């Protein structure tokens, strides 16, 4: 495996070689260096509320069981019986006291500890066979931020909080808006024949595509007679200025500076507007009125201001599998929650009027990359902006005064290239420090 990462990027010119979306060796290295080392979203509290609640998910292509323990903690382990490799837990989700492997019956508690081995005493040598060392690989570290649990295989990764850095401030604008927090009330899963990074960069950075990619949805969802009025949220968004934040750890988010709810459903919009003061008192006026749009927590956790939260599992270089949850304010009245959910079904699910067209674009991009010339092309990430001077705004971190910008995407790939070029986190962080120093 011989991948020349440096040759694939020109960060000064804003160029990314299309090869990163299709090359098999790049993908193999990603599984090792990106998914093998990043903090990957595992579950939210509301998905496994009770003791014994579990769900299956993935870190990259590795299957993971995440389960709520009796003590309320959340544990995660590789969903592979170390005996002969069988998948231990075979349901998407549920509630269980233990798991029995269907091959030879080894049993595990919900933390992944091996608790039973049929005929253990008669078939294994007690001096060499120790159940406590024969469980599945535990996810090395599981940490959580306000009910969102992340895991990483890397011993040497920074803490989750350090990893999120300034992104936490923006994350809060989505998840810590309301006193009850969020709860997941719906989930969609589907596949798109396209590379996972197309999704990652779009949620970090690409507000620009909406007016063209989603022209049809915007047109029909615009209430008649409001095409230019200030009650039309699409028009308001496009006419507004915006900002983008890029994190040194690859996260990114962007938004338009539009006060008031942008939700297309009037019931939801009214409710959100009613909450404005509460939100402002929790998060301050800035995050009550702005700082929400689209976001990526590197590498594959994405969300929008309309309540879709999604993890995107890579499935080879040519396919992504999207798991999208509808997360709504726990304290909202039922009708509001329902309309949040119905609205997402109609816009950002597999049948969603926005989502469909993204899938079409990504799938076509990917297919073209079968071409030898096409995969060598250097794509344009040239919408660059200078950051706000330090202290010019309350927005933390590296922020540019535009949402039509490639800055967050470039930040994402900058961190991606650091990981792909390094063997340890220390090495990757050192790269960042040296660049910082060189400025």
């Amino acid at each position, binding site marked *: 495996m011989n991948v020349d990462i440096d040759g694939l990027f020109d960060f000064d010119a804003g160029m990314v070689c299309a090869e990163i979306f299709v090359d098999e060796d790049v993908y193999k290295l990603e599984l090792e260096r990106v998914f093998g080392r990043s903090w990957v979203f595992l579950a939210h509290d509301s998905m496994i509320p009770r003791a014994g609640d579990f769900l299956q998910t993935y870190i990259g292509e590795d299957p993971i069981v995440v389960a709520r323990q009796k003590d309320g903690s959340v544990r995660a382990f590789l969903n592979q019986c170390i005996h002969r490799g069988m998948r231990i837990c*075979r*349901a*998407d*989700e*549920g*509630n269980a006291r233990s798991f029995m492997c269907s091959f030879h019956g080894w049993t595990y508690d919900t933390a992944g500890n091996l608790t039973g081995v049929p005929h253990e005493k008669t078939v294994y040598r007690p001096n060499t066979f120790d159940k406590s060392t024969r469980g599945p690989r535990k996810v090395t570290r599981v940490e959580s931020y306000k009910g969102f649990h992340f895991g990483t295989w890397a011993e040497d990764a920074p803490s989750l909080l350090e990893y999120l850095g300034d992104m936490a401030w923006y994350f809060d604008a989505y998840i810590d808006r309301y006193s009850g927090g969020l709860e997941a*009330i*719906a*989930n*969609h*899963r*589907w*596949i*798109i*024949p396209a590379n996972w990074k197309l999704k990652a960069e779009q949620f970090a950075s690409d507000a620009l595509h909406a007016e063209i*990619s989603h*022209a*049809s*949805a915007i*047109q*029909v*969802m615009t209430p008649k007679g409001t095409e230019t009025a200030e009650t039309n949220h699409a028009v308001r968004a496009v006419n507004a200025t915006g900002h983008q934040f890029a994190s040194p750890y690859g996260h990114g988010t962007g938004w338009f500076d539009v006060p008031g709810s942008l939700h297309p459903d009037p019931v939801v919009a009214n409710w959100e507007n009613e909450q404005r003061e509460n939100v402002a008192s929790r998060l301050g006026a800035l995050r009550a009125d702005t700082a929400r749009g689209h976001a990526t927590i590197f590498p594959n956790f994405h969300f929008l201001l309309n309540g879709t939260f999604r993890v995107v599992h890579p499935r080879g270089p040519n396919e992504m*599998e999207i798991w999208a949850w*509808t997360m709504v304010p726990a304290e909202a009245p039922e009708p509001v929650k*329902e309309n949040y*959910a*119905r609205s997402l*079904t*109609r816009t950002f*699910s*597999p*049948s969603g*009027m926005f*989502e*469909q*067209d993204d*899938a*079409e*674009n990504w*799938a*076509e991009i990917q297919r073209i990359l079968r071409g030898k010339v096409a995969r060598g092309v250097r794509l344009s990430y040239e919408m660059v902006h200078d950051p706000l001077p330090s202290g010019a705004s309350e927005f933390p971190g590296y922020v540019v005064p535009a949402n039509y910008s490639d800055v967050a995407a470039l930040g994402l790939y900058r961190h991606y290239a650091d990981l792909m070029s390094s063997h340890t986190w220390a090495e990757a962080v050192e790269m960042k420090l040296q660049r910082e120093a060189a400025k």
Partner: protein
Amino acid sequence: MSPDTESMSVCGCDPASLRELRAQRLLHREAELLDAWQFEEWLELMTEDLRYWAPVRTNRMWRERSRSISMPGESAHFDESLDQLRERVDRLATHMAWAEEPPSRTRHLVTNIRVEPTADPAEILCRSNFLVYRTRSERDMDQVVGTREDILREVGPGEFKIARRTVIFDMATILVKNLSLFY
């Protein structure tokens, strides 16, 4: 199917056969309209109070099977009133709905049509299985398979419309890149 056909009498021997034949003709006509991209005409097969709903399936152990199909208010692939369906149709009619421009080529294969009466003499319950085959662009091909449970309402003598539709897609993970059309 010409208006002439619609008005043709159907086998009047017994109510069960009658219902079956009428339901079958309605579903076949519906499929024809969908495959011909005559979506406006398709909407006319629906009653004003239509509910068009598709729950989501998850992979669960048998003992939790009751939760393997989502309930109303939980996850859904479609959850539409007639007006909302019309919005989807209008979207396709902009011909800027890139997922369907250039248009896909679909074929609705409808089988296992089963009919039974309901408590309401004006309504019948009609179940059917389907396979929707879609090709698009140069070489894309996919299939969506499932079952439907419709409430058909008699809105005029011998004339039925679809008053409620529940579509069950069999896939837990949707194995196609979008559900851009109708089922």
